């Protein structure tokens, strides 16, 4: 703004410098692209614009999807597919080789099934808890409060912290001689070794993950709440609806589309949980908090014998789960578009 008005402050200088850099860089790229227009004609220009993106997309997203399916059908420990023997469905057979699918102890790849079970448990607890807390927080932030921008940022701050930092912050709070145990002792309870007790470790993995991500979903829900027209509440009030009734009959139904999107995004994210948990507990104690992505990572990359085929098979299965979640989202998205518009 200032730059356009001919301002002279440091920010105006900065904006003008950025504009100059942008102009020079784009003109330089134009030296490559503009001759192509003369060469190929305007009609083919969209493909020129698509090319860099499609190239990277093709090589690093689309091609790997198919390659992954193929690698999952091969065995051995070599990395490159031409060195790997084709073994058909052997990797999948190994993953499903159980006497009783309900009991990981009876499986050949018991770690995989423990990871599946842990992840399922984690997804239910984390998503349920997080959506509930995010909704409550969004409702509170949507009230007439002072310093709303500040409080909104407070809940958002952990979202920006990297998972490694989040995990270390909490590792320090939760350790045997940590501040949380000091508080427990202070109120007269026994200290607990939170990260070395399987049930506690899972509980804290869930809580830490909620702590780290709820700010993002709170923001989205808050935006959803603020898009509800005030007249609807006025109309409900004229009809004699109290706070609770207008919440049930106005807020909830109108917030439903946003809620659904939040729910699906949160599920897709929770299924892929890896980094915070990996740094916080290392998947332990034992395998109590090992998630599917950690299983894939360790099977393929972090062991002496790198079993890429098995890792790929597990990730194909993970991909299928995510595909289902995505289809559910698309379905819901289609069903609710009318509301959003």
């Amino acid at each position, binding site marked *: 703004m200032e730059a356009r008005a001919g301002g002279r402050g440091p920010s105006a200088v900065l904006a003008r410098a950025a504009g100059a850099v942008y102009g020079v860089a784009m003109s330089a790229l134009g030296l490559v692209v503009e001759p192509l227009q003369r060469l190929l004609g305007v009609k083919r220009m969209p493909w020129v*614009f698509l090319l860099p*993106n499609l190239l990277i997309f093709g090589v690093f997203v689309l091609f790997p999807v198919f*390659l992954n399916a193929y690698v999952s059908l091969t065995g051995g420990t070599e990395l490159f597919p031409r060195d790997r023997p084709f073994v058909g469905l052997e990797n999948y057979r190994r993953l499903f080789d159980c006497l009783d699918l309900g009991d990981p102890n009876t499986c050949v790849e018991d770690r995989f099934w423990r990871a599946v079970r842990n992840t399922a448990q984690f997804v239910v607890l984390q998503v349920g808890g997080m959506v509930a807390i995010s909704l409550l927080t969004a409702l509170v932030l949507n009230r007439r409060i002072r310093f709303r*921008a500040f409080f909104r940022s407070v809940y958002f701050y952990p979202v920006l912290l990297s998972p490694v930092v989040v995990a270390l912050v909490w590792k320090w709070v939760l350790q045997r001689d940590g501040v949380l145990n*000091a508080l427990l002792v202070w109120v007269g309870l026994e200290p607990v070794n939170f990260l070395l007790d399987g049930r506690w470790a899972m509980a804290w993995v869930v809580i830490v993950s909620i702590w780290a991500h709820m700010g993002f979903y709170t*923001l989205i829900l808050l935006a959803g709440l603020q898009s509800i027209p005030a007249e609807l509440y006025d109309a409900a009030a004229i009809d004699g609806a109290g706070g609770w009734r207008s919440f049930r009959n106005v807020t909830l139904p109108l917030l439903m589309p946003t809620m659904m999107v939040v729910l699906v995004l949160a599920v897709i994210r929770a299924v892929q949980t890896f980094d915070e948990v990996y740094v916080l507990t290392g998947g332990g104690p034992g395998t109590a908090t090992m998630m599917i992505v950690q299983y894939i990572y360790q099977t393929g990359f972090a062991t002496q014998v790198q079993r890429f085929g098995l890792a*790929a098979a597990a990730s194909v299965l993970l*991909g299928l789960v995510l595909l289902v979640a995505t289809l559910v989202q698309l379905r819901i998205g289609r069903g609710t578009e009318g509301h959003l518009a």
Partner: protein
Amino acid sequence: MGAFLTRRRGRRGPDVTDVLTYAYLTLGVVVMFGPVAWLVLSSFKSQAGLVEFPPALLPTAPATVEVPGYDAPLPLYDVTLGDGTTARLAQVRRVGLEAQMVDPDDPGEVLRVPVQDRKEVRALSFQTANYTEPLRRFSFLTYLKNSVVVTVTATLITLVINSMAAFALAKYRFRGRNAVFVAILSTLMIPLSVVLVPVYLVVTQVGWVNDLWGVIIPGAATPTGVFLLRQYMLTIPDELIDAARMDGASEWRIYWQVVLPLAAPALAVLAIFSVMWRWNDFLWPLIVLTRSEYFTLQVGLNAFQGELNVQWHYVLAMTVLTLLPITLVFSFLQRFITTGIASTGVKG
């Protein structure tokens, strides 16, 4: 209860729901900032201070005092004297159950005090050595540089190639457009974690293991970005483009001088997301980068804490250093970031 759930419309005085609201918000500040603040405070404690249980709130160390006639500073103690009064004395040495002490203001006379009658005096003391010492092993500046290079380069590339693709998909009619759009959309939810093995294979083949390009490029063509920008560009009127074309502007010029400036809000949001993703990325750099000179901050910090499991005083300080840049950026841009993300609604 009811008024708590909906936005209050009346302008009455504060009621019980207001009290609840602010109680909740205060609790929020404690829970969200508390652990980080505790980490920062702890990072200044001495090694002895860190293993103390229950831990002290502030970083303290035994207080000392310079006393004329003694070479080294002497530790200070509060001593209960025989007549019931207390005095602050410096300890010269301890002999068995007896301590020899002097009054710092009058060091001539040495008092003998039973050790159970004296209590250590502690003073606020910030162990900056926690920060300076490990820098020889934790190459903070190298990791920071790698992280900045990855974040900035990847974000610039993401913005340019995604906006180019979005421009083609939003502003041209051509055969195959829908096929391309559907192909991109269908991979919207295929995260890197699902294709770890084959992407690693491709990156190895290209020769990008232990190369920052191996971290930068694979995630650059994000379907989310293309989708976000295309939706926004659809709202830019075609008349502007036709007018520019009439004036003889090339297609490239139309892209960067007409469309991109108008799409600035959407670009800003994608930039925020890209910086967040790249700065915090962990699993992929962990796989691609195995030599420490290429580590990003996240990978470096993880390796550091794995190596020095017990040396918390160093790990805490390096964690603070790692969270500092993003905290500074956030404190300046927080309003911009939060409204930006909220405005797009849902494209996580």
